[in-house]
């Protein structure tokens, strides 16, 4: 190709440093705008929502299926090994024993369900499916497949398995982002159900691996709080509806200041295998009781 021909044919091309400059200023402007105001790039979110969300919904279903299959395969090896010894054990166990244990288990489960259902029955809720999770490993937010079209607003509470999952932090037409209470940046105002002592529940990446959440600033002067006590969202929380179960105290110790206590709690929600959640369609401010 001769240089003359090439010159005529070649389109105008911007050098990459100018592209970089333009996009950098665009990013900075967007960052300033979204930081200063509450405007979260409405049109961008909407376009992204309609393009990305259907794919995410599909893939997350397939992904969940694959993950289940891979778990099954991993388990299969152990299961085969255990099979032999278990067969022996099964023979030893009497029918009556199994039957009784099953009944106790069912009874407990049903009692719990009944209790929990009654606890949150007065709130209007909508079910939603988790379609994607935060791309990094530092945070644990996730996206659900319902948005403002279904009446979801920012700061609405999200529950599952009868316990608190988190709250909505970002809403678009057909998706919204949820900040879970195990996230390192999350703080929830809670209280001990039995004594009404207030405390702060803060998520922690370190404790997440053990399936625990830290709590602190518990003023338990009477020393009545015991391991196993229920922790619920407090009445004075500005974002969370009162009385939603968060978890159970598993560890408690006095702080160095000898005034407050802190420790760990075990959440009722199984965050690792969460796939469907309920969003309470009621904001804290609107509750008039």
């Amino acid at each position, binding site marked *: 190709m001769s240089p003359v021909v090439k010159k005529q044919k070649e389109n105008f091309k911007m050098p*990459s440093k100018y592209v970089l400059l333009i996009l950098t200023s665009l990013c900075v402007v967007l960052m300033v705008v979204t930081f200063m105001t509450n405007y979260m790039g409405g049109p961008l979110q909407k376009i992204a929502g309609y393009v990305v969300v259907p794919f995410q919904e599909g893939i997350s279903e397939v*992904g969940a299926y694959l993950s289940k299959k891979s778990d099954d395969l991993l388990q299969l090896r152990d299961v085969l090994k255990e099979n032999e010894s278990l067969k022996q054990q099964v023979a030893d166990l009497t029918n009556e024993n199994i039957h009784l244990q099953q009944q106790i288990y069912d009874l407990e489960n049903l009692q719990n369900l009944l209790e929990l259902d009654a606890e949150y029955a007065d709130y209007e809720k909508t079910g939603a499916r988790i379609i994607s999770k935060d791309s990094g490993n*530092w945070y644990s937010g996730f996206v659900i497949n319902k948005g403002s079209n279904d009446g979801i607003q920012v700061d609405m509470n999200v529950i599952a398995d009868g316990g608190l999952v988190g709250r909505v932090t970002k809403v678009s037409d057909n998706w919204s982002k949820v900040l879970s209470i195990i996230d390192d940046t999350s703080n929830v105002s809670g209280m001990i159900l039995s004594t009404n002592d207030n405390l702060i529940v803060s998520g922690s990446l370190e404790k997440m691996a053990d399936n625990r959440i830290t709590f602190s600033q518990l003023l338990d002067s009477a020393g009545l709080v015991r391991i196993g006590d229920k922790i619920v969202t407090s009445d004075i929380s500005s974002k969370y509806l009162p009385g939603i179960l968060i978890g159970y105290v598993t560890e408690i110790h006095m702080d160095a200041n000898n005034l407050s206590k802190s420790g760990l709690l075990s959440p009722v929600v199984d965050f690792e295998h969460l796939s469907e959640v309920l969003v309470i369609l009621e904001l804290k401010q609107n509750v008039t009781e």
Partner: protein
Amino acid sequence: MARNIVTAFITFICFLLQTTVFKALSFGGISPNLPIIITVSYGFMRGKKTGLYVGFFSGLLMDIFFGEVIGLYALLYMYIGFAIGFLHELFFKEDIKLPILLVAAIDFGYNFIFYCLLFLLRGRFRLPYYFLNVMIPELVYTVIITVLLYPLLFLINRKFDQIEKRSAKKFV
């Protein structure tokens, strides 16, 4: 044109996989960092401009869905792609060792800065814990995925190179 469409498509697919499949298939709660892999790979294979665009759009998608402000991830990934683009003319693309090294270094640097800015400043001082439980596992997982993904991206790139060469010959 076809090349750009395919590149955009790959960027999009990688974001989808990152937030869905790889989250479901995470080991010990750790998943690889696909946006970094494709940003570095494209910056290395195609140069500054492609690296910059791929980084920008990968970051923008993350911003829209998970960012607190829009533009932060986009800016960060764009500069990664641009910086890697400087190496484009200096090295052979066939050798997989260098891209792997680059991905590993960038992923580690990215996570370290992330930790310093968003965890250390909030009083989370146990660096060894985060080092062993977040940064290193992610690094290893990301490198493994790079070993699989880079040859694929490289093949696609070479296919387009051949097509372009052929059409250029035909034209003359």
